[in-house]
């Protein structure tokens, strides 16, 4: 099989990998780069469990090919914490119990961070629409939405 050689940046670190032409970015992340934080829920872009950023834009890793990533900068859940220091969203999700089984959590965190990076002061409606592509079968969403709202409010306080 002729494999494609790709040079990209993942969570700020340069990486190189070889992938099959039809292998998804999600499979590359999980199976070749050992980054298993991104989950496969549906594999068809409906659930958001594999949310990553590609060149700063939120995307489903299951709907992109590894081969497409040449020269791209990819952000995954593994890039949220700084060493042992959890990202404020991660801390808040833990404190507020904004998760139960946890399979959807990496996707929610990556998507929520992408929202706050763009819009640090979103309304509840904006948060709910932004996260409409992330499915959670446990929480009923409310604790997740509240957690994101609280982090946004705290970030606003800190910025003052």
């Amino acid at each position, binding site marked *: *099989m*002729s494999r*494609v050689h790709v040079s990209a940046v993942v969570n700020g670190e340069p990486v190189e990998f070889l992938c099959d*032409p*039809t292998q*998804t970015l999600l499979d590359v992340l999980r199976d070749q780069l050992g980054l298993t934080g991104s989950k496969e829920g549906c*594999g*068809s*872009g409906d659930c*958001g469990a594999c*949310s990553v950023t*590609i060149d700063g*834009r*939120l*995307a*489903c890793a*299951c*709907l*992109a*090919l590894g*081969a*497409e990533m*040449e020269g791209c900068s990819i952000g995954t859940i593994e890039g949220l914490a700084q060493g042992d220091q959890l990202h404020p969203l991660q801390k808040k999700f833990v404190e507020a119990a904004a998760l139960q089984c946890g399979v959807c959590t990496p996707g929610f965190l990556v*998507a929520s961070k*992408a*929202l706050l990076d763009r819009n640090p002061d979103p309304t509840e409606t904006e948060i709910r*629409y*932004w996260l*409409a*592509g*992330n499915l959670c079968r446990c929480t009923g969403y409310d604790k997740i939405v509240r957690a994101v709202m609280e982090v946004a409010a705290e970030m606003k306080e800190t910025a003052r």
Partner: protein
Amino acid sequence: MQQTTYAAPRSLDEAVGLMAAAGGAARILAGGTDLLVQMRAGSLAPGAIVDVKKIAEMTTIVEEAGGFRIGAAVNAAEIGEHDALRRAWPGVVEAINLIGSKQVQGRASAGGNLCNASPAADSAPALVAAGAILAVQGPKGRRQLPVEKLHAGPGRTMLERGEILVSIALPARPAHSGDAYLRLIPRTEMDIAVVGCGVSLAMEGDTCVAARVGLGAVAPTVMLVEAAGAALAGSRLDEAALEKAAAACRAACRPIDDKRGTIAYRTKIAGVLVKRAALIAARRAGGH
């Protein structure tokens, strides 16, 4: 087993060459949000994947001749962030921004939405109403195609073998013009249109002087409903004119019965949406 190849050409000529070399087995990859799903489902096994996202003309939005030329592979999020485009064509932008989740928006393109040729494609009725002209390039060179001529049936386009949809041109806007897109779905977000309707019109004072209506999800292809546009043009968008446009839309419907809507329901809703979309477009035009 057949081996799929992947290539990301930097020029259109190269892309057309790759498509020709694959002899019909190639598929264009723009955002991939339809292609990868079809490949995973096993309904498609392309011999060659031609990624067009390294071709500048297909990935940029340029202001041209008073209008805009949107590269067919520009993602929906980027289209939504383009201030000038949003001001000139709010209906087109809102239609494209209704396709899928934020994750999908970050990859999916208007060109891909058109070429996927779903009768319920959200971008299509708004682009039909806007009078968008498509630039298509293939082995025989370049040609232009009005967007309403693109679809041949569910999942089928009028593109010939090896042709690539390059860009979508939106014409210059006369003063006091506006557009709007409405779709009916049973939920608030992330669903497939039961009916979609785009209206673009120009006003002079209280009078509508020109109008185009695009209708989706009520026939095998998205349609330009000329009779509906004609009913609005020349009127003050009073109830009689709106009802005439609604009747024209209902008459154009040839929908299917399915779990999302019956024939009777889709037909009725087509009339409701055209009235509402026309009034929103008129308000945006500042003339009503």
